Each structure stands twice: as structure tokens, then as C-alpha cells.
């Protein structure tokens, strides 16, 4: 069961994040999935799909590589590294052309063969620093 749960998360990263096939999320998540750590404009799967689409627009060549996976019971923990070039608007930030690399750790709770709850932790501050839109803390001005 753990292997099957790991595959659900792998497919999510491969389809939605790597291939931009956000529609694949319909089979992988429940409609009312609760997402922590990634603010959504609309709650649930529709909002999460919108977020995934936004990332593909912002980073058309965006690609996540799975570095580590562990699973226990109904949960899967995945550590991944995402690399992409900022070629599209992201959260009001016009494209900078900069390449970003960041690591994230996600925890997915699987119920009835679908992801019911998703926690994501990644260094958004680091991403904004790589894009050059936020200075390092403690520096005066830009």
C-alpha cells in the first residue's frame, strides 16, 4: 500500500508539475483536498489546480526531481528539487528570465486512493531572492 501511495504522489509531480498536465490531478486528489503551506485563491482541488497552472506559466520548463520518498501508514513524505526559468508572470511579478532552483518537502495523506490532505514546505523567500525581487534580510535597501 505504501508503494501505491508513493506512486500517487510521484504521478502528481510528474504529470502536474513536470508535464503541465494539471487535469491529471482530478484522479489523484479529492475535490475538497486541504492544502497547507501553499495559499490558494479558491479552496480545494480547483484552487490547487489553478496554483499548479500558475507555476507552469511562470516556469514553463519547470521540472521537479524526486530526491527522497518515505511512507508510513496513510502518509507519504517526498523531498524534491524544482528547477525552472522565470519566463511568465508569477504572483504579479513580471518574468525576470532568471533560473531558480529550490527544494521542497511535501507530506501527502492518502484516503481512498486519493490525496486528501497536502502539506508543502519550501523556501519561497529563497525563490524571491533568486528572482532578485527581495533583498537578503538585514541589507539596507536594494
Amino acid at each position, binding site marked *: 500500500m505504501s508503494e501505491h501511495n*508513493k506512486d500517487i504522489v510521484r504521478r502528481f509531480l510528474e504529470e502536474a508539475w513536470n508535464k503541465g498536465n494539471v487535469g491529471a490531478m482530478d484522479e489523484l486528489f479529492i475535490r475538497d483536498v486541504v492544502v*497547507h503551506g501553499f495559499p490558494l485563491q479558491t479552496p480545494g482541488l480547483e484552487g490547487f489546480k489553478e496554483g499548479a497552472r500558475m507555476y507552469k506559466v511562470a516556469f514553463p520548463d519547470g521540472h521537479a526531481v524526486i530526491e527522497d520518498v518515505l*511512507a508510513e501508514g496513510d502518509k507519504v513524505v517526498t523531498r524534491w528539487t524544482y528547477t525552472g526559468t522565470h519566463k511568465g508572470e508569477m*504572483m504579479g*511579478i513580471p518574468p525576470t528570465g532568471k533560473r531558480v532552483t529550490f527544494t521542497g518537502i511535501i507530506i501527502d495523506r492518502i484516503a481512498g486512493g486519493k490525496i486528501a490532505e497536502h502539506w508543502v514546505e519550501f523556501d519561497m523567500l529563497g525563490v524571491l531572492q533568486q528572482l532578485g525581487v527581495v533583498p537578503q*534580510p538585514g541589507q539596507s535597501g536594494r
Partner: protein
Amino acid sequence: MPYEDNAKLARNIYDAFNKGDFERCLSLATEDVEIVLVPFGQVFRGREGFRTFMQGFKTAFPDLTINPTNQVSAEGAVVNEFRAKGTHTGSLFGPAGEIPATGNKIDYAVIEVWGIRDSRLASIRNYFDSATLMQQLGLVPFPERVSGGATAFTASPAENKVMVRRLFEEGINRGSTAVIQELIGPSYVNHDFPTPVPGPEGFKQMLGMFRSGFPDLRVDLHDVLAEGDKAASRGTWHGTHQGEFMGIPATGKRIAVTYTDIWRFENGKLVENWVQMDLMGLMQQLGVAPAPGPASK
């Protein structure tokens, strides 16, 4: 060939192996591909040798599937790390001869060092934990655990979870340096918040750096999970910004910052750590991060 393509080639070949599509595996290998099964001292040469190698494992463990959990790519090479899991329902031909089906479940660690040439698999050196495999097949008895933690074998996931909880609750929240000394291995490194030196001393120094900014620092653990030699924890750091932190003078603000981390265990101790933390949230709570764009994250 860019490094990521080496990792992708490996994943494609493993996928084909998992589906039993040996022809596809062979088509992705060079004609002179050479497989060395290091623990058994066996060498398989050429595409037919590659087929024999794959067939051997599929016959012994028909439900064997390989999914690398870690890949390290370099020029002309990729290292793949995975656990081989399956059921021994067919004969396995080991170094001493045929091992008839036992029906036992196997689950052992493997590393394959692949050489890549002309976008194809040119060589594999396969290293696996043959002692564990032999134990799981019932051919060699399991050793007795030595009490006190110092053993050459990994603790169980349940024990690993207890260690993580103790590190946070006793080592960090109750400030027990003795517990930190007990649980953190001498080779401990943190990949995301580098410690000044390895081992428990480095861990204590890094913790000290956080404590100097937030003297009442504590962690609320929400979840701990474990599998194999790894564990993960999810929680929230709490504290009051009473000292300089990352160049930011004390603001007196209270913070609540979420994190998720992964730990690796070796010989009953914590030796490797990856952490992702809501640093953006931390900066916003301290009042120092501008929030760009319409959304806050």
C-alpha cells in the same frame, strides 16, 4: 548528455524492467554493456548478459519493482539508490548455487553505479546488502541486537520515531545536551542549515544560534513518520525575538514558523537532516520582509 538525462535514462530503464519489457531495456543499453553484481562476484556481458541478469531477478522475485529514491548524476554516470522489494517465489542463482523459492518477502538496500555512454547504459556495478538478503531468505540467522544502541544494524522505524520525538522534546524543548549527545551521530550534517562542525557539537552550535535570537525557542511536533532508515517530522517553531537573528536586531515579536524535515539514521543515531522551513513567514512575522505582488506567498 546533460546530467539529468542520465537520471531519466535510468528511470526509463527501471520502468521497462518493472513492466518486464526487457527488449526496451536492451535497446537502451550499449552492445558491450557490462553488469557486475558485486556481492555475488558475478559478471554479465553484452545485451544477452544484461538479459540474463534481469531475468535472474525477475524469475526469483516476479513482483520485484525498482523505483530509485535517490539519484546522483554526473558526466557519463548516474548512481541510483533504491530498495529491492518482492517475494521469493522462484529460484535465485547465488554464488553458491541455486536457492529454491522460499516464499519469503525481501526488502533490502541497493546502490547501482551506472556508466552512460552515447545516451545508453554502458555499465552497472550493483552493490546490495547481501547479508540482509541471505537473512531474509532464511539462509543465515539474524544477529542478536546489542542493547544500548551501538550496533551495525539499523533500528526499527518505531525506534527511529521515538528518537526524533526525544530529540525535539528533550534535546530541544527541555534543553538536554546529554540527549543531543546521545542521539546525534558523530557524522551528523544538516543539508539546509549547515552546522559549523559535524556531529552533536555542530547541532548544538546551530541550535544555539537560533536560541540566541529566540531564547524561549520551542517546537510543537505535529507528526512523525518513519520508513526504513529515515524519519520525517512536521511541526511549528515558537519563540520571542529577543536577540539579534540573521542580522535583524531584536523586535520582541512572537513567531510561529512551520517546518518539515527528514532524518537519516545510521547505527542507531541521527546522521543526516534535510529541513524546509517557512522562512518567508518568519520574516513577515518579524516585520522585515516586503510582500511582493498581490499574494502573500
